[in-house]
């Protein structure tokens, strides 16, 4: 499976460096190594979800209890979580750190992934959720740290889009 182990490790290490101690996730191809790293790390709590919107609740509870968390999901999972993001994350000013695999962009071979890729950034913009792209290894650590900083200073959800050039080794 040509999902980049080295990029996944960079992302995982940056999440830990930014203080993340709980990760919620639903499996998706690009996220397999990240989820495995969270599972194998005794200092991390991995919460395997049935649906992504639950992750908003988990992260909200963690934040209110003083623990930093991150949500790992595919962009279709992000679309499935939107009511929670708006009516919990935004309404209650929760600093959600969302890492969203940006499937359906140039190079996508799975026909079923293509619709979500076309709308994800527009939906993020419509929700006024600040976002940036993780598309090359050299800026992963810095952008994750900056996203975490803004999430907490603004007390709002933020998103990082995990892009094909970073996650997939063709």
């Amino acid at each position: 499976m040509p999902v980049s182990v080295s990029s996944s490790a960079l992302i995982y290490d940056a999440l830990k460096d930014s203080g993340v101690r709980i990760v919620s996730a639903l499996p998706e191809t690009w996220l397999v190594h990240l989820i495995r790293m969270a599972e194998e790390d005794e200092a991390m709590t991995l919460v395997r979800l049935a649906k992504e919107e639950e992750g908003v609740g988990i992260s909200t509870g963690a934040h209110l209890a003083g623990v930093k968390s991150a949500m790992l999901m595919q962009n279709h999972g992000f679309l499935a979580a939107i009511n929670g993001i708006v009516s919990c994350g935004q309404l209650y000013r929760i600093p959600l750190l969302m890492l969203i695999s940006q499937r359906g962009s140039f190079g996508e071979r799975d026909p079923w992934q293509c619709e979500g890729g076309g709308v994800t950034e527009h939906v993020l913009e419509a929700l006024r959720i600040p976002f940036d792209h993780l598309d090359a290894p050299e800026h992963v650590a810095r952008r994750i740290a900056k996203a975490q900083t803004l999430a907490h200073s603004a007390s709002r959800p933020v998103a990082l889009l995990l892009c094909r050039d970073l996650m997939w080794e063709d």
Partner: protein
Amino acid sequence: MRRLEAIQAIYPDLERSVVVTIMGAVAAELQSIGHRPNFFYLQHAMGLASSVGLGIALSRPELPVVVLDGDGSILMNLGGLTTLARYRPDNLVHVVFDNESLLSVGGFPTATSTGTDLAAIAQAAGVPRSGTVRTLDEFRSSFIEALGAGVLTTIVAKVEAVGPAGYVTDLSLLENRYQFARHLKERGG
């Protein structure tokens, strides 16, 4: 059993707990008895109160967490019930007030009015202790037992479809949210 009476019956026991409620009648009735800084009312995001409770329980295993849920809310997040059961935090008591109705939005009947059994769903999801109660005495004793059990428990309390006259209180959502977070920060185990 009326939900207000049920909440009154356990109110003294909520003082030491960290409480997360759903929106609507449960939030308004608990506030009408008396707000405390350890109460968080999730006034929207229907279904997620149990997930918020799980997030708190996993983050602070030393704190007793009580979720006051409802039939309409838990039916919107049955997947979350399986996640709750999967991690089965032993510091969480999950109460579901089941009035078989979406009371605060007009009283449309939920599926529990046509036979859906939430305690059986909780059990089948993997919640180690679950049951249905129908009287105040049963509710209070099962709640006290669950608080002391040290095992994730779901109590489905059948209540009448009667609610408060209004749902808006003078506690703003963000005031509640920041007060609650501060309470958790300052509080030891």
